[in-house]
């Protein structure tokens, strides 16, 4: 079923919307949740929470990209579940990803001092839009969808070291961009 039709079902408060959403995107959402939580049960919980949240959000929200809309929710849910279940201890993948991203941050960066927390999102968005599509997708596959390096290598046909290197270069560019934008300075 087309996304627009599923969204219409949400607007009509027809629970078929949930079944169609699960049928169309359930497995992909599970993959994201499993990548972040590294736990089948947690992932299942995240998926269900995501459906519920989508049900509560649509309407009034009318997402243009339904899967991206759901992916944002489940990513957030998965990170929240991780924090709850592991008592602030992050899972291996979140540690790995945040460590990689820490290279992007200027040494003096302190987000607590930032007045507008949306600024960084805007800068990130501008930065990614300025990149070539391939680089942008690679960055988001890694840092949004938490796709393992090995999987990215398999998808692209590049070596894992090549993927690592490309991501390194992107992080370096992002670091420069954040510095130029005065993030945290």
């Amino acid at each position, binding site marked *: 079923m087309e996304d627009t039709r599923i969204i219409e079902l949400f607007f009509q408060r027809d629970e078929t919307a949930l079944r169609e959403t699960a049928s169309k995107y359930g497995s*992909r959402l599970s993959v994201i949740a499993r990548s972040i939580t590294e736990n089948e049960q947690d992932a299942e919980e995240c998926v269900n929470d995501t459906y519920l949240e989508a049900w509560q959000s649509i309407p009034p929200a009318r*997402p*243009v*990209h339904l*899967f*991206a*809309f759901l*992916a*944002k929710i489940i*990513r*957030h849910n998965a*990170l929240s579940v991780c924090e709850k279940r592991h008592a602030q201890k*992050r899972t291996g993948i*979140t540690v790995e*990803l*945040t*460590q990689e*991203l*820490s290279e*992007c*941050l*200027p*040494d003096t*960066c*302190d*987000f*607590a001092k930032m007045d507008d*927390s949306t600024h*960084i*999102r805007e800068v*990130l*968005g501008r930065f*990614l*839009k300025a990149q070539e*599509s*391939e680089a*942008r*997708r690679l*960055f*988001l*596959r890694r*840092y*949004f*969808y938490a796709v393992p390096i090995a999987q*990215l290598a398999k*998808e*692209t*046909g*590049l*070596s894992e*070291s*090549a993927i*690592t*290197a*490309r991501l*390194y*270069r992107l992080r*370096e*560019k992002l670091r420069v961009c954040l510095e130029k934008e005065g993030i*945290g300075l």
Partner: protein
Amino acid sequence: MSTPMNETVLFQAIGELDEALIAEAAEPMTPIPTDYLMELTPKQVKPPKKGLILRRALIAAAAVLLLCGLAVGMFAILHREDPGVSSEKVPLCNTDDLEEFVAHWQATHAEQGMDFLVVPVCKTAEFTFIRATENEYNYFYYFMPADTGSDLPSVPPSLYDVGIIVTLSKSKGSYAGVLDQFGLTDRGGKAFHAHGDQSKIWYINYDGYCLSVRFFNPRLLDEPEDFSTVTEFFEFLLFTEDNTPMLPELETGTALPTTDIP
């Protein structure tokens, strides 16, 4: 250093990006071509339906101009006076020229985020080691001594005729480690071997000169977009800014090796 909280904030901020961006990356990526030599072949794209004849005519004209340029270049090269092997005749073999070379490289390529090592080798230069870290790029210059009783006795004397070895790297290793990465301590003759699974060596041999370009940085190895073509890359290495050949005996048109050197 940033705190873990800061790191998490950035990670979470990525989760709040525009849905259009996120949607674009939702599907698995498609294979990315890695073969440099593919850059030398015609792009495998469908020709446009409109203006095809004009397009072909322009390509043909460009090809003719290119051939003329090559012919002129060949003529110029073949009629150069043979300078022999000396530091005077190999522009990169003195400090000033090397710095110019580095400056040129920096001006033309540093913006692309490329780190590199430059290793000129000649018979007359004194051994020096300079590391410049005035910007985010690290440059390592090595001048190899000519006599075999030097600090590098394991380098075959024949290799002192090498005009230049250029290696691209983001090396943070020690001096010895860097040399090891170059393969200077363990190679023999002109048979270079790969060093580690990230190595790949391209080389061109000419009478009296051997230019080897050793890639062990996967960033360059797998990212041909740094240069449009392999030819472009080698032309950059082999010619100065005013198109003077750096290696007098250089002949154009020599095929590049298609595989790693075993």
